Structures are given as structure tokens and as C-alpha cells.
């Protein structure tokens, strides 16, 4: 086989902790090669080594048979090896076009802005996002940033394109566009290394699959030879049971009711009801306004609302503190920007919202440490070093830590925005079970997710948003993949009764 790139016996240590122990496999040109493994298995690290962001501690990377050693990502890019980062790698103050061309601007003495804008627009077009290239990245939503990140890589004419969880924040629609793009690249002979925790995607687009476990190469097989179930088992090294636990019937009383929430520019008179013991999903395409709706609800954005009632009592939520006081917490989809303080260690991150439990009145750091150890155990957070900064955790482990942080507050209403983003199958399953347990114990859970199967498998009801409005609330037999997509894309509207009552109140 014509090998474009090959890993030979790659090892990597951070300080005394070895995270890759002699990994070897190869990928051919025109191949889509998936790399899967649990959180912290070493996927991102391996890819960073390939792309010149980190040197290996040992072993050899070969490109077209020749051993290569990159001093920087620029060296790798010179050979057409390009990485789409799992965590965003964009300068927030610069525009989309500036970022796409950063480090390889066109123009002579003066920059050719027009050309770059055109080039950026074309690259954005290829990944199916319509965005003014002059927009500052700071003003983009998380999925938009992800698409820009992809556009940036795609515009680099890669021979080897490494995608580290490119679809973690994308909805099926964008994902499909991306797949079309990947298919096209593969026809042109590009090697695509594709990392994802979404095994259905892996099954759909890859030619071969490599499985890593705990920094070791487990196997490389033709995708066709494996079922998703087998992939999952190979990843975790044991037999995984059913992903979704059974749903218990929600209670009758209302935990949270929101009437006519408007977030200027993003959401328009959104209303919904959350019952005790219920899991309420929010589906929608990128840009439907789900994130902003809930940021508005918590007072994290300017918003107006007619009425919010918590367990029947009207409440005013103007700040996240108000929300917390009323037992409402929100997990942001933007892990790095809003979820974790990457510069701080795990412990202060974990206890940030619950410090009052440790203040007596001085902080009891030992108790905090015990809480951390418990969380590491309970949520399966893998870290070589508990003293490390949160930023050094693998993506999925960061997600688990963020989740552990908000759940530590023992909230009544839990709003989870993309809770399984970047989380491996095993852990995902644990999170699903956790959500179900929360519901069963009488809490209300709102799950905003771009993964339809997740919503379908988890939720009692799903609100579908489109263009900043709740287009439909589906439940029971009406709750199906096709229906959700129809509403989400605006192909179907549910406009029988006046919007507000139509929306949601199940008993109304």
C-alpha cells in the first residue's frame, strides 16, 4: 500500500508521565483514517506530534517513506500536513479572514485584504458557512468558530488533513456538509486523519480505523470489518452495555416555567415548561439561538422575559447568582472560554461554585482535595497528575471536570449545553445514566445537544428551535429524527395555536 504517513513506535512524555507508549500505524493517500479511543488515550497528542506542534519523546514519523522531524507546525505545513485543533486556535481579536490567513498572508509590502477576504469567503463556502469574513472571531458562536477552524485548515491545500473532533459542536447539517467535503478531498488523494467520538460518523466516512487505548495502539482495521459496537468495545477494552438507560415517567409538578423569553438578536419569545423528573431536550441547527436563549435566561446576556416561575413561585433571574440561588445551573458549551479556568489546577476549578462548603471560614483545602479525588473517581477524569492545570487535561476530561463542577452545587434545574461534547463512548454512557439518575431523583434536566440520537434516546420531550423561535415541541410518537430535522430546518412549522400556548405547556 502507498503509505503517505506512518507512525513508528511513537512515545511521548510530559514530565515523568508517559502518555504515548510506542504507537505505530500508517495511513495511505486518499484514505480517510479514523483514530478513536477514550478520553486521554493520546489521540490529540499523537496528532500534534504529526503536525509539528510537539516533538515526540521517541519514535519516528514518516512522510512518504522519509523520516521527518518538524521543529514547528510551519515545517509540517510546508509538506502539506495540517491540523484542525480540537480546542480552538483562533486569535479572538482578529477577523475571520485574518485568522484564516494568519501566518501566510497574501500581498506584497501591503496586505491584499480584498484577496484574503475573497479567499476566506471561498474557504467558508466550502465548509458551508455563510459569514462575513470581516467579523471578529470574538463575536462568533462556538460552532461558528469550529467551522472557521475547519475553513482555515481546508484553505491550506493539505496533503494530510488531521481533524481532531471537528464535529463535536456541529449539528447534523454542518456535519453532512463537512462529509461531502471530506469525500471530495479523498478523491483528490488527500489523507484525512479523522478523530471523533461519534462512532456513527466514523462508520460512515472512514476507510480504516485505528484504536488507541491508554496511549497504546490496539488495532488498525478496515472500517467495514467493525460494527460501532465493536469499536466501542475495543476503545474501552470491555463489553459496553446499552447506551441509554430507561426513562422514568416525569412527575406532574412544574419545576421551571419560562414565558416569552427574548434575547435581542438571537431568540424571540421562547416559552417552555420543565417538569420535575423530566429531561427536556433542545434541538436546532447551529445558530438557532439555543445557547443564547439559556444565557439570556441566566442573565449572562441582555434579555427580557415575561415571567419565570420556579416550582410555581415567580422569580427574577437577573444574574447567574440569582439562578444559582434558585437552584438553576448552566453548563456552557464553550468549555475553554466559559467553562474552565485552564490556567488553574483541577481542584479550584472543581470547587469554584461550591466554595461555601469548604469555607469554615478558611478554606479547607484538604476537603477540597477529597472532593477532587471523589470527582476524579465518579466522573472518570483521567489525569496523569492531579496538581496539573485544567488546561493540560485531554478535551473529554476537561468536559467531565466542567460537568462535575456544576453538578457539585446539587442543583434542581440542570441546563446542559452540549454535555457530551468531546466525551468518549464509555463516559458518554455514564453521563447519560447520570442525567437519568438526576431526573429520577426529581430534578429537571435541560439538554441542548446537536446530537440527535442523544436527544432522542434521552429526552421525554424535545423543543426544536429555528431562527430564534421554538418551532415545535415534540414528544411521544411525534418525537422522531425526521420530524426534528424538518422543524429545525424550517421546512415544517407548527403554527396552529398562538405561539406561546402551542409551545409547551403539556397540561394546558
Amino acid at each position: 500500500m502507498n503509505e503517505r504517513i506512518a507512525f513508528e513506535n511513537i512515545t511521548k512524555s510530559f514530565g515523568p508521565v508517559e502518555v504515548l507508549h510506542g504507537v505505530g500505524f500508517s495511513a495511505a493517500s486518499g484514505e480517510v483514517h479514523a483514530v478513536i479511543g477514550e478520553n486521554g488515550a493520546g489521540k490529540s497528542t499523537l496528532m500534534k506530534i504529526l503536525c509539528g506542534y510537539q516533538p515526540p519523546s521517541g519514535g519516528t514519523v514518516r512522510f512518504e517513506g522519509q523520516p521527518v522531524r518538524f521543529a514547528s507546525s510551519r515545517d509540517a505545513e510546508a509538506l502539506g500536513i495540517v491540523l484542525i485543533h480540537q480546542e480552538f486556535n483562533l486569535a479572538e481579536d482578529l477577523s475571520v479572514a485574518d485568522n484564516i490567513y494568519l501566518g501566510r498572508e497574501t500581498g506584497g509590502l501591503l496586505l491584499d485584504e480584498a484577496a484574503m477576504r475573497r479567499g476566506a469567503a471561498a474557504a467558508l463556502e466550502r465548509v458551508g458557512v455563510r459569514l462575513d469574513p470581516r467579523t471578529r472571531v470574538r463575536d462568533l458562536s462556538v460552532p461558528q468558530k469550529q467551522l472557521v477552524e475547519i475553513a482555515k485548515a481546508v484553505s491550506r491545500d493539505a496533503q494530510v488533513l488531521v481533524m481532531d473532533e471537528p464535529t463535536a459542536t456541529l449539528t447534523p447539517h454542518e456535519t453532512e456538509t463537512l462529509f461531502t467535503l471530506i469525500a471530495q478531498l479523498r478523491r483528490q488523494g488527500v489523507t484525512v486523519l479523522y478523530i471523533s467520538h461519534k462512532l456513527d460518523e466514523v462508520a460512515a466516512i472512514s476507510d480504516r480505523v485505528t484504536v488507541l487505548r491508554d496511549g497504546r495502539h490496539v488495532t488498525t482495521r478496515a472500517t467495514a470489518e467493525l460494527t460501532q459496537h465493536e469499536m466501542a468495545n475495543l476503545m474501552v477494552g470491555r463489553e459496553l452495555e446499552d447506551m441509554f438507560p430507561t426513562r422514568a415517567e416525569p412527575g406532574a409538578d412544574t419545576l421551571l416555567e419560562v414565558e416569552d423569553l427574548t434575547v435581542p438578536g438571537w431568540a424571540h419569545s421562547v416559552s417552555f415548561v420543565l417538569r420535575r423528573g423530566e429531561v427536556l431536550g433542545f434541538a436546532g441547527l447551529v445558530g438557532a439561538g439555543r445557547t443564547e436563549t439559556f444565557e439570556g435566561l441566566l442573565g449572562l446576556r441582555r434579555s427580557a422575559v415575561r415571567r419565570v416561575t420556579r416550582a410555581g413561585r415567580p422569580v427574577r433571574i437577573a444574574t447567574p447568582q440569582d439562578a444559582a440561588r434558585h437552584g438553576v445551573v448552566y453548563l456552557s458549551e464553550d468549555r475553554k472560554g466559559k467553562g474552565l479556568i485552564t490556567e488553574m489546577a483541577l481542584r479550584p476549578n472543581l470547587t469554584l461554585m461550591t466554595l461555601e462548603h469548604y469555607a469554615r471560614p478558611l478554606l479547607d483545602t484538604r476537603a477540597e482535595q477529597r472532593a477532587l479525588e471523589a470527582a476524579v473517581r465518579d466522573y472518570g477524569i483521567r489525569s496523569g497528575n492531579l496538581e496539573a492545570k485544567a488546561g493540560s487535561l485531554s478535551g473529554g476530561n476537561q468536559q467531565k471536570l466542567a460537568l462535575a463542577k456544576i453538578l457539585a452545587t446539587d442543583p434542581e434545574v440542570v441546563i446542559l449545553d452540549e454535555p457530551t461534547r468531546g466525551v468518549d463512548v464509555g463516559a458518554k454512557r455514564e453521563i447519560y445514566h447520570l442525567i437519568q439518575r438526576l431526573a429520577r431523583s426529581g430534578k429537571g434536566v435541560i439538554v441542548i445537544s446537536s446530537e440527535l440520537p442523544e436527544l432522542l434516546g434521552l429526552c421525554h420531550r424535545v423543543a426544536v428551535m429555528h431562527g430564534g423561535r421554538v418551532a415545535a415541541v415534540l414528544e411521544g410518537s411525534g418525537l422522531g429524527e425526521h420530524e426534528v430535522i424538518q422543524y429545525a430546518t424550517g421546512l415544517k412549522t407548527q403554527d396552529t395555536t398562538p405561539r406561546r400556548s402551542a409551545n409547551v405547556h403539556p397540561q394546558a
Partner: protein
Amino acid sequence: MSTPKPDAAVAAARPPAVLARIGSLGPLLGLLALALVATLLNPDFLTVSNLTNVLTRAAFIGIIAVGATFVIISGGIDLSVGSMAALIAGSVILIMNALSGTLGNSWTTVVAGMLIALGIGALAGLFHGTTITRGRIEPFIVTLGTLGIYRSVLTYLSQGGSISLNLPLSDVYSPVYYGAVAGIPIPILVFAAVALLGGLILNRTRYGRYVQAIGSNEQVARYAAINVTRVKIITYMIQGICVAIATILYVPRLGSASPSTGLLWELEAIAAVIIGGTALKGGSGRIWGTVVGAVLLVTIENVLNLTSIISVYLNAAVQGVVIIIVAFLQRGGRRA
């Protein structure tokens, strides 16, 4: 949630990175090196009386710098501290002089003056904090503005001259600076108390943790339901109160205030903080470093007074060189 993999919880703490550790001791090493040089230049450096003098003097800038540590860690800055000190000194002197009419030249008057000083400091801080957070104005601008305002108001109050504490009152007040408890001058005790308390608040309370969190990533703090506005306002109030405490010690020392009181203290205070290893960008820092930084700055001045080997014109140059060298020693502690 149960994940029965034992290896998941591996937490083999890395062996203490010796190098990083030495780096973080940088300012202390710098101070020791300086002390060594000083002793070689003039053995009298090591006398108890000289060391006492040095620490007593370091108390002013040191106490202010403890406050500045909070502000800087939270991601802010306060340029007004020197002017604020001048204004507080001037106002409380005027007020105490006036009070002495009714309350007499008594401790009551002095204590009333002290309380008023603390009040003014806290209020100034409240103003800064509120303008910065609710008014959404850069701290640099707000406090640059008040730097001018406070000093101006003092100049106005003093009509360009100086304001002096009346003599009998000055005698009553004097022990606060010149007195000692168990042989240790009161300013040193106060400095130690402020530093300890500051360290405790910063490292062992919720509030301190919030300050660090906000300085590291304000958004995350906001999303974690921390009242960012309040925490920030309080940092400026702590700064104001620290300035007031320093001023309370300062007034009995020189017994007067004038338009040049506290000039450039802001630079010194911030320098003490940064030399001590707190990053100007905020997020993390340490009170003990600040204390060492303040002592170091005062020691440089002291050493220059102890010798005559250097042209008097070059004092500031020596200070500059020493500061850079100390920072260099310390850089191991910083990420590249």
C-alpha cells in the same frame, strides 16, 4: 456515576520541580544577595537598628502593595494610590486639627482620625471599583484620572503649601509610628499583620479564590455564578483601606502632607508586586512575594545611603539595574 477503572485516578504527583521552586524564590534570593553586598560594603547594614529602620520604612509601600496585589491579581490596576495617600493624610490632619478643638489633643481625636482615614480609603476604592465595573471604564484610565483629582484636591486644601498636624496632637499620635511593642516598631507589626491577613484572604478564603479566578478568566467566573462586579469592587476597596492604613502610619512620622506627598508611590507599589512574582496580567500572585519586593526596594535605597561609592547622580540607575537583575533571577518561575 461509577467508573470502576482504578487507573483512572492515577495521581502520582510529579517530583517537586526544583528549578521552578528556585525560580519562585527569586525575589528572596535577590534580597539575600543584596543584603550580602550591603554587608560587604558596610557591616553596619546588619545592625539591628538598621534592619529595623529598613523594615519600618518598607511598611508604607509594603502595605499599599499588599492591596495592589489583590487589584493586580484580579486583573485591574490602581495608579492613584500615592495621590490617595496624600489626600487622606491631608484630610485627616485637617480633620484631627479641627476635632482637637472639641475632643482635645487626645487619643479619641487620633482614633477618630484613623477611622475617618479608613473610611475615605474605602470610599475611594468603592468609587474606583464602581466606575470600573459598572461604568465599564479601563482601570488604568479611572485611576489615572483620580490620581490627578486626589492630588489636586489636596493641593487645593493646602493652598499649594503643606498641612501640618498641630504639635500637641502630633505628640499624642507619635507612638503609632515611633513606638514599639516587645522591641518591634509598630509599623513593622502592622505591616506583618496586614501581610498575614492579606495572605490568608488571598489563599485561604472564598473571596481570595474568586479574585484569582476572575483574574484568570473573568468569563468563567461569571458563568460560575460569581458576583464578578462585587469581587472587583472589593479589591479596590481593599486597596483603598491598605492605603489608609499606610497613611495612618505615615502621618505621625512626618506630621504633615503636601502636594508632593506620596508622589510616585504607585510605581513603587506596583513594582513591589511585580518583583514579588505576581503577573501584571493577573490571575495569580503571592503576598509574600510582594512583601519581599517592598523590602527589596527599600533596601536598595538603604544600601545607596550606606555607601558613597556611587555618584549621587546615579542612584536611580543602580535601583534600575538591581530591579532588573532580581527579576531575572526570578524568571524561572515564569512561563516563557
